[in-house]
């Protein structure tokens, strides 16, 4: 930056006269990019305020609102400390600017956002959590009502979005679900093979892989993948629609957003997630089978024979029965968090994150509850 592009300042104090007079000579460019160097010096000048002050601006080459504001602010601060201030050498175009600034200065005070104390913040947070909880309950109730209504009037079910959701949440998730489940089967067989070999119980690898995958791992894994893939997408989609007022627009044309946006997602996911789980079962067992062959030398035939003995229908069903419950959790949380979005792009990101965290959390909690119930029932 050359000397001409920055603001400059010189002061001369005449102590012989009474009252003492100070001359401030301003020069250079008093612009938003140039005034930074003189800002601090003006502040120290002001602290020594007394007597008569003359601010000479005849050598100022450029003045913009930031520079004019600095002049105005200095003059005001000096006057508040009892000094008299005169601005000299103001060019006509600068003086209109300074007048405008002076006129607007009264209303131009920065307003600090209100400070909230810790206690108030805790209270606020608790209140929001409670509101969130009751909102969630209301949302679940509303979803149930909409569902009952569409059972009474099956024509109101919107099939197109249901099929569309089955495709995006289910069919398009096949590769990733299959791959991860396959790898999960490989890992379990790999970890188990070593242990079983020590006891000479090689064949039980089929029991291990089959039961672990069918009862626990593939329903859980599939639900977590779908929560991450589709639950987040639901939250983001509905949230963005809410910001752009599309949700309000739907209401005004007499289409319930629940009916169009939420219900098809729930139905689609309740259909899709069990199917994905079965697919994951197959992929996981296949992974374990390959590993058993490679590490323990168990042929596919022997493995499948043993699998037939090890698994009962109930082993399969206890896994698959969880999937619709997980599906409802994921779809409802995703949609609910989408509706919680308000105002900013920030909020979309936040609620999407919350939706994934909450739905994975609740899926695991539900899985634990299932284990307890199955234990009681001796399944």
């Amino acid at each position, binding site marked *: 930056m050359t000397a001409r592009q920055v603001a400059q300042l010189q002061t001369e104090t005449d102590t012989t006269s009474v009252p003492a007079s100070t001359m401030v000579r301003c020069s250079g*460019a008093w*612009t*938003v*990019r140039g*005034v*930074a160097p003189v*800002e*601090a010096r003006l502040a120290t000048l002001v602290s020594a305020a007394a007597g008569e002050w003359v601010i000479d601006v005849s050598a100022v*080459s*450029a*003045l*913009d*609102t*930031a520079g004019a*504001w*600095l002049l105005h*602010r200095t003059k005001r601060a000096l006057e508040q400390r009892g000094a008299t201030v005169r601005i000299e050498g103001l*060019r006509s*175009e600068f003086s*209109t*600017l300074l007048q*405008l*600034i002076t006129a*607007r*200065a009264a*209303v*131009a*005070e*920065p*307003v*600090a*956002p*209100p400070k909230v104390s810790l206690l108030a913040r805790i209270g606020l947070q608790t209140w929001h959590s409670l509101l969130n909880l009751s909102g969630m309950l209301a949302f679940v109730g509303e979803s149930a009502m909409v569902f009952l209504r569409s059972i009474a009037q099956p024509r109101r079910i919107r099939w197109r979005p249901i099929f569309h959701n089955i495709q995006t949440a289910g069919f398009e998730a096949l590769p990733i679900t299959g791959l991860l489940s396959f790898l999960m089967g490989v890992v379990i067989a790999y970890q188990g093979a070593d242990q079983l070999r020590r006891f000479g119980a090689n064949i039980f690898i089929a029991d291990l892989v089959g039961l672990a995958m069918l009862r626990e791992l593939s329903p859980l894994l599939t639900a977590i993948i779908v929560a991450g893939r589709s639950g987040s997408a639901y939250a983001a989609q509905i949230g963005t629609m809410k910001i752009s007022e599309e949700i309000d627009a739907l209401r005004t044309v007499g289409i319930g957003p629940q009916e169009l946006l939420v219900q098809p997602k729930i139905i689609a996911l309740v259909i899709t997630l069990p199917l994905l789980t079965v697919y994951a079962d197959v992929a996981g067992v296949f992974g374990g089978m390959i590993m058993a062959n490679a590490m323990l030398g168990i042929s596919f035939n022997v493995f499948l024979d043993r699998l037939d003995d090890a698994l009962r229908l109930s082993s399969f069903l206890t896994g698959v029965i969880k999937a619709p419950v997980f599906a409802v959790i994921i779809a409802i949380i995703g949609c609910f968090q989408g509706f919680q979005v*308000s*105002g*900013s*792009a*920030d909020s979309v990101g936040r609620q999407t994150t919350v939706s994934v965290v909450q739905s994975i959390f609740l899926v695991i909690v539900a899985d634990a509850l299932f284990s307890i119930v199955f234990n009681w029932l001796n399944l």
Partner: protein
Amino acid sequence: MSTAKRVSLASDAVVEIRDLHTRFGKAVVHESVSLSVRPGEIFSLVGGSGCGKSTLLRAIIMLLQPVSGSIRVFGREVIGLSEEEALPLRRRWGVMFERGALFSSLTVAENVGMVMREHTQLSKPLIDEVAALKIALTGLPADAGAKYPNELSGGMRKRAALARAIALDPELLFLDEPTAGLDPLSASGIDELVKSLRDVLGLTIMMVTHDLDLLWRTADRVAVLDKGQILGVGSMTELSRMDHPLVREYFYGPRGRAAREQAWKKK
């Protein structure tokens, strides 16, 4: 910058477009558009929806790459400029987008202050004060500064967007539909604001608008755009005497007539 400096620029145009061609895929947006904006004037682009007004604006502010032609801003060619080379140029102009485009996670005051914080070495208190001043200059109440964009009405949001656009005291201001979606009262407030910005701060203003009232009240020169070509450039009075059927329809349609009559009454 100073008015004095602007006067010395008077001989050459602030924005100079020569033979500009723009395309979106196969659709031709501009065909051989040429125009120039003089220092200190309020220049407006008008034309029907989809005639390429906003696209032209986006090409000038380097958000869109034209196919061929030349755009010079402050005498510098902007087409093919690297990000680094573009920065000094970008600091000299301010842009107000049609829908405000305020950063939704920041308050209005932070929106305005952010630009200053990024490009100047001013202290935080001074930045806050200047931001409050800019907010006051656009006619917003002082408490608007602490609000978030989604808490503001449409008109207030436009004013806040304008406050951000003038945060760095630009020499050139681009306004995309400054009055679209506003009630007549807010819109006429914007008219006054645009004029006073030019008169007091000495800005050059280039705007895109449909608003005939705004045009009659503020624009020094107007370019009529249709199907990617410029039909005519001139003051509103000159344009209203033009023979081109489309221009006539624009100015002598029922709304055009009302706005014109009102403008004459005021004079």
